């Protein structure tokens, strides 16, 4: 190990880098997620492009100092476009031995390692499974290690305050943040302002954290422990107003936008479940924006209430994760039969069963497509990134309303919690969402008499005189009467399917995301792998390789023209998925093309390098 001693005299040299990847790790109670978010937002405000990966345990506060209790947060900020939190970190802050042990493999060789040396006592070392201090052994060789007594300096910094020792210690994350701000030339002001807002009612906490943040910054400056100060310039993002946004907040905001653009009341019926809960939390603050929320007794009640609200003329929405989606299947069948707009948001997590509840995965595609009894088709969409959640919710709502159908939108834990700069749309730039309620008894010919263009049935609000009618789960004829007629059933099954298939003409056709049609390899993706795939494709192309990529936001129906593109590339297609190949199976069956899957089921997103490596291998093999 090369323990770094303070640089001597003069100002520290500054180095401009294109991107920086930082990883923070500590106990669940160490405020890691909060520190990470601050760093992200500060970087975004500084004009960088940013991508983040929060990574926390399934326990609220797993026992301090243990390996399963480690909470992590990685972010990448850059002066270029950034699509992932990065593969390996340039700098790691480890608040205790367990955090070090769990995260060291994620640090680049030669990377900066800041450790809270106060936490490396015998007890913590033992809990982390070290029989000696790594600070004194060989395992840290090859890293630039900075042992700092973060706890003790934080306490010193707060000596004059009245806080309890425990409260003081809870500020130590801001010390580390201060050091990082200095190291990466970040301004303190956004964080200070945030502290004032956050602790408006507890100014003593705002003050303490500010003190500690400044102490960390000053310590880095005056103690001169770092050899270099890094600078990361503005990223060339498209012009506009930006904010930092995670996927679940994007979903909630989109619901407000949908309410605004459609004039409908949005009714979110939900039951808390990780990692979807924050959709409910954030939507709970949107009452003034036309979004009502209802925390139901379970997932079935949540979707039931949402469907009831849609019947009543609102836009019903429900948000959940895999186990909840499994429970909603029967009610979704009713929604298909009732042919009402309904938005079902599934934020996927590691399964099966309770699985890895705080980790990410893409293994709920199958159940989204097929998880209902009978012939029960329903559009399925997937968001590609945190910001894309906003657009896809909007799009899903538009389709649900126009085509009178429940729609499933898939997100996942990675983009739900991950944040990125988001270009804030101006309300006037949002497309309108036209809504038509049938009100005229004269022209009403039956609850299931379909619109010629879309195949949608009329939507009638209860309370409309003369249009009283009944819908429900039994098969109906066009007039809305229960019908056991065999031919009618077949006709209705086909009509429902045709309606969904017809949505193909209402969505953008398939097109390449990167590259050209003639390239040697096509990488296809859906959902949150978009960032890693796009980044990998760009990097491979920069290296002169003929690789293109295509991203699917619409999984049912699939976009027009997809078959042609895939057939053109058959045998030269790579499909990375965080599952055992669910989309691969769908595309092979549908288009009869040969696709190679890249499977990863570890609760973690792809690294760019993993995709690049497999792509290179395929290119070599087919050459």
């Amino acid at each position, binding site marked *: 190990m090369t323990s770094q001693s303070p640089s001597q005299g003069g100002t520290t040299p500054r180095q401009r880098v294109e991107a920086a990847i930082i990883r923070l790790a500590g106990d669940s109670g160490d405020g890691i997620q909060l520190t990470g978010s601050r760093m992200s937002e500060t970087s*975004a*405000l500084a*004009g960088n492009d940013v991508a983040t990966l929060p990574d926390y345990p399934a326990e609220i506060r797993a026992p301090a100092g243990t390996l399963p209790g480690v909470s992590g947060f990685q972010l990448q900020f850059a002066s270029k476009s950034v699509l992932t939190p990065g593969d390996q970190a340039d700098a790691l802050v480890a608040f205790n031995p367990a955090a070090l042990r769990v995260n060291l493999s994620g640090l680049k060789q030669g990377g900066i390692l800041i450790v809270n040396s106060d936490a490396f006592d015998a007890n913590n070392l033992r809990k982390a499974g070290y029989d000696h201090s790594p600070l004194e052994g060989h395992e840290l060789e090859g890293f630039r290690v900075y042992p700092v007594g973060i706890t003790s300096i934080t306490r010193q910094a707060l000596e004059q305050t009245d806080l309890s020792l425990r409260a003081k210690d809870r500020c130590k994350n801001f010390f580390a943040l201060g050091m990082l701000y200095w190291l990466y030339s970040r301004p303190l002001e*956004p964080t200070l*302002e*945030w502290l004032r*807002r956050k602790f408006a009612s507890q100014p003593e906490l705002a003050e303490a954290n500010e003190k500690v943040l400044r102490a960390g910054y000053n310590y880095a400056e005056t103690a001169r422990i770092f050899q270099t100060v890094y600078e990361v310039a*503005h990223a060339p*993002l*498209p*012009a506009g*107003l*930006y*904010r*930092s946004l995670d996927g679940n907040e994007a979903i909630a*905001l989109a619901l*407000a936008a949908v309410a605004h653009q459609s004039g409908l*009341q949005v*009714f979110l*019926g939900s039951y808390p479940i990780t990692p979807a809960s924050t959709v409910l939390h954030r939507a709970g603050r949107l*009452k*003034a*924006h*036309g979004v*009502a929320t*209802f925390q*139901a007794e379970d997932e*079935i*009640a949540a979707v*039931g*209430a949402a*469907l*009831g*609200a849609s*019947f*009543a*003329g*609102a836009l019903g929405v429900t948000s959940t994760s895999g186990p909840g989606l499994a429970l909603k299947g029967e*009610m979704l*069948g*009713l929604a298909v039969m*009732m042919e009402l707009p309904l938005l079902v948001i599934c934020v996927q997590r590691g399964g099966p069963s309770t699985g890895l509840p705080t980790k990410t995965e893409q293994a709920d595609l199958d159940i989204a497509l097929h998880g209902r009894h009978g012939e029960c088709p329903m559009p399925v969409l997937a968001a590609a990134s945190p910001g894309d959640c906003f657009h896809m919710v909007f799009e899903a709502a538009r389709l649900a309303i126009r085509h009178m159908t429940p729609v499933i939108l898939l997100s996942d834990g990675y983009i739900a919690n991950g944040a990125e700069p988001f270009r*804030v*749309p*101006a*309300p006037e730039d949002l497309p309108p969402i036209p809504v038509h309620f049938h009100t005229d008894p004269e022209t009403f010919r039956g609850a299931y008499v379909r619109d010629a263009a879309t195949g949608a049935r009329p939507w009638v609000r*209860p*309370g*409309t*005189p*003369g249009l*009283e*009618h*009944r*819908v*429900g*789960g*039994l098969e109906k004829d066009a007039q809305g*009467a*229960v019908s056991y007629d065999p031919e009618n059933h077949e006709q209705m099954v086909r009509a429902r399917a045709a309606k969904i298939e017809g949505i193909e003409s209402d969505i953008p056709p398939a097109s390449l995301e990167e590259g050209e049609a003639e390239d040697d390899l096509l990488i296809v993706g859906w959902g949150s792998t978009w960032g890693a795939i796009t980044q990998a494709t760009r990097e491979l192309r920069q290296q002169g390789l003929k690789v293109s990529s295509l991203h699917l936001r619409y999984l049912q129906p699939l976009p027009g023209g997809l078959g042609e593109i895939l057939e053109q590339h058959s045998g030269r297609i790579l499909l990375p998925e965080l599952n055992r190949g669910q989309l691969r199976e769908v595309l092979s069956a549908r288009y009869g093309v040969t696709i190679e899957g890249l499977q990863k089921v570890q609760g973690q997103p792809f690294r760019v390098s993993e995709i690049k490596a497999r792509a290179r291998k395929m290119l070599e093999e087919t050459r």
Partner: protein
Amino acid sequence: MSSDPVPTYKKKDFSSGLEVRWCPGCGDYSILNAVQTAFAAMGVPRENFVIVSGIGCSSRFPYYMDTYGIHGVHGRAPTLATGIKLARPELDVWVVTGDGDGLAIGGNHLIHAMRRNVGLKILMFNNRIYGLTKGQYSPTSEQGKVTASTPLGSIDPPFQPLSVALGAGATFVARTADRFGKHLQEMIRRAACHRGAAFIEVLQNCNIFNNGAWGQITGKQERIDNVVYLEQGQPLRFGEEGRRALILEECGQPRAVEWNDGGDPRLIVHDETRPEPSMAFLLSHLAPPEFPLPLGVLRDVPAPAFEDLHHEQIRRAEQSESNDLAELLAGPSTWTIE
């Protein structure tokens, strides 16, 4: 809501005209009759009614009413109805369910609707059997019942539906029977007047799979000794010419005694408005042979309706918060890239 004067309805205005497909002789016919009659008299525009049901013979109900309606999935009617009521509190939302639909698969939604006090009017047709699936025992079937699924007799004790509702905090519970058309109509009217959740157990005969289940209650002769009608402020008298009455012993134990001109201080005088629910609870599980079965309103106490609180919060937010979408989308901190 229409602002026109409310039309006056006849019973048949509430008939959808769809052929009613219950078995001939089924108690559901009389309930349909009573509901149509009661609705017609309510002075509510027909288009403001929504009837929501689950699955079962009873749950076919909405098809026969010329109102808005949903024939839902098994046990989940209260969830659909809650969504409707929250989205559109001005609608009159009625739930029709069965003892299986409401208390087997749907028990949880029912108790949560009671707890929240959502303004749903819930009619549970209790025939103590699963009719539509051809006669299995239900959670209200008497212990020892021999049915298709229990050839040696069922072994579980039944729920008392009203006790379950009261245990969940119900603010209005009542009991009536298919055969007692006028009483049934009155209970419907009372439920409609209650703000918040109202739960009515309707004793119903399934003449195919559980014929005579309520014979002791509805039989012309039997009912005299086996029914006590609850009337606000009145002592609980029953039997031939009201010659018997219910008292509460010191230890809190109820007992049926001879009527002694009201002289006994232990005589139970019915008060449906008592905030403390234990007396309603006590009444809810009295049953023959030891006691008469109470029919009428057991409890009717005021409490804020869930939908009112829901919209009150929305109104408060609308008054105190900005509804500027641009501001919302931008959030507290933004930056501009030129």
